[in-house]
């Protein structure tokens, strides 16, 4: 297909603590790595899309250019919560599809090591007289006084709501801890993960409680990291070497959605409807169904989130996420391995890097380069991210036939 876009090169840095590297260092490491992986240079790149959520005003794209090559190409600095990396990739893909570029570079980077809880927005300060402020006329900060805005608490409710809707009769803490146990076990095979230690169910359940039922190891790990991808048009790929064509990964679907209005969606964020919509569009674009997937990297920012996305991405029957987990399907030796990288809970979640790092993991398997954690014969994979606000990115990737 003429308008097919390919991933030519892709890389991620080690996720974890990088005290001696700043965001530009990490972005440069990832970008130079992706260019080298693709066998091209910055001179070949027609468009750059870059994201760094915590420094969204600083222009990470141009900062990066000043280190690796100021070639005068258009730069799009993007910010879309936890979907920032996927948005950067999609921006580069769109530029190629529009015919304005043949080669694009997408970069996501974040420095989060040591960051505390990521809280919400309604933090009107407490003054010495009660003054109504903001869109709710609030006289005090609402976080903690009128429900919670902390991420672990919001996503805990997302998981609990699913259990309520589907009349789950078991113990929520143990159920969600099992998801975390799976991902921490997976991480032992991923040398680039921030945490690579297996944890027992008892350890996970007995660890520090953050927001029931999410204990600390069930929350995504704040860390530093970057990821980058070089994308090319079909016509450009055809001019490149056989080896480049063999390692290229086809982007069969690239979809970004926001949340359509649903009752209650401005009270507790609705992470379901926009994910279902993105998945439906992605399967249609790619001409594949969930049963065709050999592996899935989904946005397990909390153990409670992973469960609902089994259902949202159509990996199981509607309402069947608990059965899907209990069947063993999402384990790396199961029918539909989910988060074989270790997921955000152990690999880590440097926000803007995550949406490209998930795609790197899938590409790694499709290219047959994943070493000891290789899913044998992987042909098709899906990568999903969601950022509150909300934004959802879904990409379906396929191994090259060349």
């Amino acid at each position: 297909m003429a308008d097919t876009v390919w991933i030519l090169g892709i890389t991620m840095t080690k996720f974890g603590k990088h005290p001696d590297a700043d965001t530009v260092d990490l972005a440069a490491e990832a970008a130079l790595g992706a260019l080298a992986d693709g066998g091209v240079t910055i001179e070949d790149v027609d468009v750059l899309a870059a994201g760094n959520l915590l420094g969204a005003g600083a222009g990470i794209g141009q900062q990066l250019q000043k280190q690796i090559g100021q070639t005068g190409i258009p730069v799009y600095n993007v910010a879309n919560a936890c979907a920032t990396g996927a948005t950067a990739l999609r921006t580069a893909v769109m530029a190629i599809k529009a015919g304005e570029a043949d080669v694009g570079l997408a970069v996501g980077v974040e420095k989060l090591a040591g960051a505390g809880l990521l809280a919400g927005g309604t933090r009107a300060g407490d003054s010495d007289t009660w003054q109504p402020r903001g869109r709710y006329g609030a006289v005090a900060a609402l976080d903690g006084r009128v429900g919670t805005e902390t991420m672990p608490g919001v996503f805990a409710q997302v998981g609990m709501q699913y259990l309520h809707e589907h009349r789950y009769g078991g113990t929520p803490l143990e159920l969600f801890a099992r998801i975390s146990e799976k991902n921490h076990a997976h991480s032992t095979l991923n040398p680039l993960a921030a945490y690579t230690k297996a944890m027992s169910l008892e350890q996970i359940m007995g660890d520090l409680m953050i927001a029931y039922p999410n204990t600390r190891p069930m929350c995504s790990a704040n860390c530093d990291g970057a990821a980058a991808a070089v994308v090319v048009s079909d016509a450009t790929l055809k001019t490149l070497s056989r080896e480049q064509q063999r390692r290229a990964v086809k982007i069969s679907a690239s979809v970004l959605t926001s949340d359509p209005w649903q009752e209650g969606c401005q009270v507790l964020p609705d992470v379901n409807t926009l994910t279902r919509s993105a998945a439906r569009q992605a399967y249609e674009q790619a001409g594949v169904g969930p049963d065709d997937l050999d592996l899935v990297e989904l946005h397990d920012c909390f153990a409670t989130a992973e469960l609902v996305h089994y259902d949202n991405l159509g990996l199981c029957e509607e309402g069947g996420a608990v059965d899907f987990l209990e069947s063993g399907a999402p384990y790396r030796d199961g029918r539909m391995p989910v988060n074989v990288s270790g997921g955000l809970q152990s690999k880590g979640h440097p926000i803007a890097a995550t949406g490209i790092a998930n795609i790197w993991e899938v590409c790694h398997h499709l290219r047959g380069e994943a070493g000891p954690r290789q899913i044998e014969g992987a042909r098709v994979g899906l990568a999903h991210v969601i950022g509150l606000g909300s934004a959802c990115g879904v990409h379906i990737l396929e191994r090259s036939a060349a």
Partner: protein
Amino acid sequence: MQQRTPIVDYLVLDGDPHLVASECEQCGARYFDRRNACAACGAAGGFRQVAIDRQGELRAFTIVSMAAPGIDVPFVAGVVDCGGTTVRANVVNTPPDPDHVRLGMKLRLATFPLGTDSAGTEAVGFGFEPLEQS
């Protein structure tokens, strides 16, 4: 009599305390914040104030152990279905543990003082408490 102020402007303290929402006159979507137009249908025509049921059912909850400074932990945060309108609130007047807080439990609105400021005005907060003490 002491001046009182609600924690948010959608809490009405006169008479039986209750919550109010802005309801879109075109499609019926309900909101608790100041509106520019309707996110559900796009209409900017107008909103009417509607009272929200004082009783509801707990649809989701979490027990927060790590929170911002000044917030006592653990506390129960939840989402309450009040006759079809979703409301965010803490679950109060019950021990904050999974044995006492259950999905689907029936709740009712409760108000409580948050403190008095230097001008002598008392702020009033709200939460939902179990309808039947277990």
